[in-house]
């Protein structure tokens, strides 16, 4: 914990300071003591006592000597005596009064003798202070008392000796004490010095260790950067390179020595980025604006020494140092990665292109094969309507079944493509499963009889007839498996058993067991039969024929239905296929269907049929006229466009691939034109079921698509849908009954959703709603826009509305467009006035459609 460490070291520092201050204070006090003591020693508060005492004795003796001399002379020198006495007197008074002799005076013996001497001098003074005559007469007496005082002076002087000894002792002790104090101070100082030395030594050791650590870390960092695979470039805030590791040398082709000190921009930034780089550095220095630093990984081009541009990925970080901010850039040469990415992209593009060309090929092939087949089937269909014997009728039915099977083979190829591309869509319809099984058994019975094989089917347990399921797929699966069983069985028996398993509320799972007593398969073959182009024993194949795709497709379809297909077989004894998939059981719809068919029965309509293939054209015409419609034929798109210019049709059936002008071009021309049929529903006739193209047709202005081969049922349904719808819509345009309007075609949108996918349709609807919101404003503000612009805008939006099934809106917009083009302002205003109301109704419906993910959600 760094915080705790800091606190501890702070505490240590404080403690050290306190101890240091206390130590210094003690040292200072001690030193002051010593200095004071030393000063006391120099400034003695006494002069030499011993000398004074002996001086007193000397002066006494001098006085006595003068007195002695005077007493033997005739004319004694009295002044001499007086002077000597005064000197002695002065000495004794000093001894008696001086402060520095207090210690001496405290000695009893000294003070007693001092008193004796004082008594003597006072008495002597009385004599001496008299006149010369009196003094001369008293000399003998003075001699006597002076002699008597001698002992006192002597004793007083001697008694001082004791004091000298004591005084010396005290002085010596004092000096000794002072010296001890001094020694203590010195010792203390020494100790402090030792502590300081130890401390400094520790500090030094620590510093050395830290320094070596720093050196080690530096070395390590150097090793790391120099061996790093990424280039590491360190610059200062002016872009001068300060470090350039060996990876940088390799990537950029400069030696570190040449690079260091140079401007990083001039060295490694490509010319076209140089200006931006310099500007960036300037901004950085000026106001710390960062575009690159600390922004994570960035991809940018770099320049090598030889001028080559290389893609780089780099990250820049900054750090503050004593010499200002530095920037550390880690750069990686991603040439290889970029190349790999490009390779990958081009590989993918090639693969996609390959896939597309395959799809295109298959689509074209299926179209080319289906067109003549359609003719065949159409003629069979017509033939069946003629007077026939029962035998002939059966043959025709068998031919039809086989023809359809052939058609379905072609569809198979497309289905495999679709399934593998994830585009296979189920088309559930109401169907009778029992009827389907009977149909299949019937169609295969010929082959079975030829092989002397019994073929039958039955329900195992309770049965269900009507289900909602993708009839085509189920038929394909069962036909394939049953067909195989019949193919590989001689003199045996093929049985189809159907059973309802796992019956719940509205979903029941059907199980089909197709067992035969045929040749069977070994386990190796069993594991391969669902593979594509698996044809089993080649010699036998030649005998029985087959594409080898059948079971592969069957398996795909079963999976698409959400079911399973399994096989059990013993070589030489037979095989059993078990197929399970869920279906939706429904009530028998027959009566309802019939009533719907009747209800939908269209009024006689005027139909333009555009088809280049004569047989197909004839078939379609026959079917339509049989239903009571009037048919006008056109061999190609151009004829159709011309006809539509002059005549009104209730419906146009438009083939796509045609000479002169194809169906899409023709449709666009009709829609763009002003003719009476420019708004007539146009139905695409195509054998090409590719989803992408279907969307394209609708964009061209086609209203629906009818897939070839044409069936009477399909044709009639289409006609009734569009013509009836048209009539209904015409009625809804009347303002009295707007609620009857089919504002949007949900069925069409559902188709579109199935075609385009949920997500793309959502985004289309989003765009459409936003776009329409804007254009509505623009159109309502028509007074400020030229008519040509309004016409163009209305046309554009009408196209969008048509493409997304907003039928009312489209109709209204077309009216707007026409009025604008005709410069009919009154009509234009009236038409535009209807727009907001229609959009108010349409918008929430479109939004609801946008939220819908599929029809079943409704």
């Amino acid at each position, binding site marked *: 914990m760094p915080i705790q460490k800091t606190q501890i070291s702070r505490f240590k520092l404080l403690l050290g300071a306190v101890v240091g201050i206390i130590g210094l204070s003690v040292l200072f006090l001690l030193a002051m003591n010593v200095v004071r003591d030393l000063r006391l020693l120099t*400034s*003695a*508060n*006494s002069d030499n006592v011993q000398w004074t005492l002996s001086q007193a004795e000397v002066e006494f003796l001098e006085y006595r000597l003068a007195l002695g001399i005077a007493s033997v002379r005739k004319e004694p020198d009295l002044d001499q005596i007086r002077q000597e006495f005064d*000197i002695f007197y002065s000495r004794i008074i000093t001894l008696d009064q*001086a*402060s520095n002799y207090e210690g001496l005076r405290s000695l009893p013996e000294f003070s007693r003798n001092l008193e004796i001497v004082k008594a003597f001098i006072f008495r002597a003074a009385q004599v001496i202070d008299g006149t010369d005559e009196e003094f001369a007469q008293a000399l003998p007496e003075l001699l006597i008392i002076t002699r008597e005082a001698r002992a006192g002076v002597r004793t007083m002087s001697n008694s001082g000796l004791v004091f000298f000894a004591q005084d010396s002792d005290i002085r010596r002790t004092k000096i000794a004490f002072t010296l001890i104090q001094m020694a203590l101070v010195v010792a203390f100082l020494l100790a402090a010095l030792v502590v300081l030395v130890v401390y400094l030594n520790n500090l030094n050791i620590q510093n050395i260790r830290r320094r070596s650590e720093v050196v080690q870390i530096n070395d390590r960092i150097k090793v790391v950067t120099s061996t790093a695979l990424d280039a590491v470039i360190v610059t200062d805030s002016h872009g001068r390179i300060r470090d350039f590791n060996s990876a940088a040398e390799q990537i950029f082709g400069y030696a570190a020595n040449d690079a260091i000190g140079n401007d990083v921009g001039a060295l490694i930034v490509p010319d076209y980025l140089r200006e931006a780089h310099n500007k960036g550095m300037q901004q950085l220095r000026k106001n710390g604006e960062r575009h690159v630093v600390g922004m994570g990984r960035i991809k940018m081009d770099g320049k090598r020494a030889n001028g080559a541009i290389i893609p780089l990925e780099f990250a820049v970080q900054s750090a503050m140092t004593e010499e200002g901010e530095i920037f550390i850039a880690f750069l990686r040469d991603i040439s290889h990665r970029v190349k790999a990415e490009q390779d990958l992209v081009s590989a993918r593009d090639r693969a996609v292109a390959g896939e597309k060309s395959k799809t295109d090929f298959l689509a074209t092939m299926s179209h080319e094969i289906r067109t003549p087949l359609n003719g065949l089937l159409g003629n069979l269909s017509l033939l069946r309507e003629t007077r026939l014997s029962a035998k002939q009728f059966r043959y025709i039915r068998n031919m039809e079944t086989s023809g359809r099977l052939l058609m379905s083979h072609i569809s198979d190829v497309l289905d495999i493509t679709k399934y593998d591309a994830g585009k296979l869509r189920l088309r559930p319809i109401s169907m009778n499963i029992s009827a389907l099984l009977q149909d299949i058994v019937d169609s295969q019975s010929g082959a079975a009889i030829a092989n002397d094989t019994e073929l039958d089917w039955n329900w195992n347990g309770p049965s269900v007839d009507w289900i909602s399921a993708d009839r085509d797929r189920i038929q394909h699966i069962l036909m394939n498996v049953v067909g195989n069983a019949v193919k590989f069985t001689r003199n045996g028996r093929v049985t189809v058993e159907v059973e309802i398993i796992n019956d719940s509320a509205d979903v029941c799972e059907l199980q089909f067991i197709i067992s035969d007593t045929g040749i069977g398969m070994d386990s190796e073959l069993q594991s391969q039969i669902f593979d594509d182009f698996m044809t089993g024993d080649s010699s036998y194949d030649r005998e029985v024929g087959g594409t080898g795709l059948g079971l592969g497709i069957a398996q795909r379809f079963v999976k698409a239905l959400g079911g399973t297909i399994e096989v059990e077989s013993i070589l030489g004894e037979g095989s059993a296929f078990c197929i399970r998939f869920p279906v939706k059981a429904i009530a028998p719809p027959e009566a309802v269907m019939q009533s719907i068919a009747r209800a939908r029965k269209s009024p006689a309509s005027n139909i333009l049929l555009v088809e280049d293939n004569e047989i197909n054209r004839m078939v379609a015409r026959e079917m339509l006229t049989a239903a009571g419609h009037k048919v006008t034929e056109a061999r190609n798109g151009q004829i159709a466009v011309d006809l539509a210019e002059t005549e009104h049709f209730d419906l146009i059936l438009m083939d796509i691939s045609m000479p002169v002008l194809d169906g899409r071009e023709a449709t666009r021309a009709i829609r763009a034109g002003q003719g009476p049929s420019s708004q007539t529903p146009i139905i695409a006739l195509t054998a090409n079921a590719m989803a992408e193209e279907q969307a394209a047709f609708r964009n061209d202005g086609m209203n629906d698509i009818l897939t070839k081969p044409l069936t009477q049922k399909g044709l009639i349904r289409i006609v009734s849908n569009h013509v009836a719808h048209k009539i209904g819509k015409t009625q809804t345009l009347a303002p009295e009954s707007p609620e009857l309007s089919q504002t949007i075609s949900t069925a069409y949108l559902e188709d579109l959703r199935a075609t385009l996918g949920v997500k793309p349709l959502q985004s289309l609807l989003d765009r459409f709603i936003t776009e329409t919101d804007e254009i509505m404003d623009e159109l309502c503000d028509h007074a400020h826009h030229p008519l040509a612009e309004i016409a163009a805008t209305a046309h554009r939006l009408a196209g969008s509305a048509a493409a997304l099934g907003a039928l009312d809106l489209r109709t209204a917009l077309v009216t707007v467009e026409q009025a604008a083009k005709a410069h009919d302002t009154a009509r234009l205003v009236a038409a535009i006035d209807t727009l907001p109301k229609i959009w108010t109704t349409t918008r929430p419906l479109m939004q609801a459609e946008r939220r819908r993910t599929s029809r079943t959600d409704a």
Partner: protein
Amino acid sequence: MNRALFYAVVMTVFTAIAATAQALPAPAGPVILTVSGDIDVTNVDDTAQFDLAMLNAMDSTTFSTSTIWTKGTRSFKGVPLNVLVESLGIEGETLRATAVNDYAIDIPISDAVQNGPILAYEMDGRTMTLRDKGPLWLVYPYDLNANYRTEVIYSRSIWQLDRITALK
């Protein structure tokens, strides 16, 4: 300017200076101090002799201080040593002071400074007798300056002073 007049002025000035330098009158009363040796100003033979009146006439200083030889603080009045040294034109290094009892001590001229020792002739406003360490006592301002409270200075504090010899 008249040359004669110029010389006259110059001469007058010199005479005046000479007169000041040798204006030490002969002592009238009893001599209490005799300064001999290397001195510029004399009045009796080669010496400068002073009676009390002459000393009184000179610049004086008064200060109070305690001494180790007396009781309590005393007031001393006297001629500062530096004044005496200057007035006698003494230029040597040392003064040898001698007391009536022939106690002698060498005092360096460097002691003769302002606020330094004085030749005290009055203590507490009274002339000092021989018995009171008079007539002259070289007193340092002990209380004023710690440097004056040393044994050396105490030994220089000569009392009953009557002779000074200026040594070269």
